[in-house]
């Protein structure tokens, strides 16, 4: 068994974070992190705005750093534009990005939340991703220290991922995480377009997390994970952001 920690926003402790960093637990699920009404308002706001998507291939708002591993200037240009869009999207709700930052800062009272800047440019606050019926996210990891080496944020010691569920699916779209930590040697099992051959997860313990509106899920994204196929007419819409812990400077960085 490999279980998640289900908790409320005011119960989360530093030890919980340590448990997912060390792989003792699969994830932290903070129930009802954002009010359902606020999630719905965000979705309505997005629908009412004519927002340029970050690529033709994906229906995402905001640049994802890993898509810009060698295109740093372009990433920061797009991040600046997206951050303005996010301000508008969150204008009439409790700002979920700020709420996530506040929650994390309380867990790390000895650490300073750093408004990370690189050449005076800000990282993207978050990405909002919409996955439709029939879409899935293949088995993968996220590791900025490996793939984002051209960015200052790659120097962190630990990377964690926050996923806030803004819209539930009718069926499917669950996150499965496997008790298998990525190592460079696993690169020989890579698939061309994205991710890893699914055979490498077969002998690993796993946990599956259902998409529930308003829940915030925190995982260590260096453990292999995937999102199962979305079914039905309701898209899976999530807000995603990473935070990194730098032990030497006792700083916490956020980016997307």
């Amino acid at each position: 068994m490999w279980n998640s920690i289900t908790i409320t926003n005011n119960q989360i402790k530093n030890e919980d974070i340590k448990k997912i960093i060390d792989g003792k637990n699969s994830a932290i699920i903070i129930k009802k992190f954002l009010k359902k009404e606020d999630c719905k308002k965000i979705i309505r706001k997005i629908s009412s705005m004519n927002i340029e998507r970050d690529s033709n291939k994906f229906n995402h708002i905001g640049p994802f750093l890993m898509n810009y591993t060698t295109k740093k200037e372009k990433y920061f240009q797009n991040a600046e534009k997206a951050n303005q869009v996010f301000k508008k999207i969150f204008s009439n709700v409790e700002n979920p990005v700020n709420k996530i930052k506040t929650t994390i800062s309380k867990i790390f009272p000895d650490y300073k939340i750093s408004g990370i800047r690189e050449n005076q440019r800000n990282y993207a606050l978050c990405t909002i991703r919409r996955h439709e019926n029939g879409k899935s996210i293949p088995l993968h990891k996220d590791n900025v220290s490996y793939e984002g080496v051209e960015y200052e944020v790659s120097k962190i010691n630990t990377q964690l991922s926050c996923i806030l569920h803004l819209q539930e699916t009718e069926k499917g779209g669950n996150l499965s995480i496997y008790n298998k930590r990525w190592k460079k040697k696993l690169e020989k099992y890579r698939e061309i377009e994205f991710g890893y051959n699914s055979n490498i997860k077969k002998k690993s313990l796993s946990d599956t997390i259902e998409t529930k509106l308003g829940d915030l899920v925190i995982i260590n994204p260096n453990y292999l994970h995937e999102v199962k196929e979305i079914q039905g007419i309701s898209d899976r819409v999530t807000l995603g952001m990473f935070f990194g812990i730098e032990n030497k400077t006792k700083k916490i960085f956020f980016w997307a």
Partner: protein
Amino acid sequence: MTDTVWGNGHSIISTESFQLNITHRKDGNSEKYPDTVKIIISGVDLPGLSDNKSDWTVENLQNVIVDAFLKCEIDSKTDKGDLIAKVSHSGAAGY
């Protein structure tokens, strides 16, 4: 159309070449390629490696290329069968 192969960097041969273990080949390639080939780098799009060849060192290439999953777009082939190719990091993220 450019022939393309994918695979993992195995060992660095010089400051501009390495051995690639091929794991995937593009459908429609004009020829079959062996499982192991020498790649002579014509250009790169790799995080951590400058576009400028004169900056490259063996150590630098080792960090970036060995074990990494790479896409090699083949420009040409030498008389010895080595492939001259543009090398990039393949499919990092974005879903």
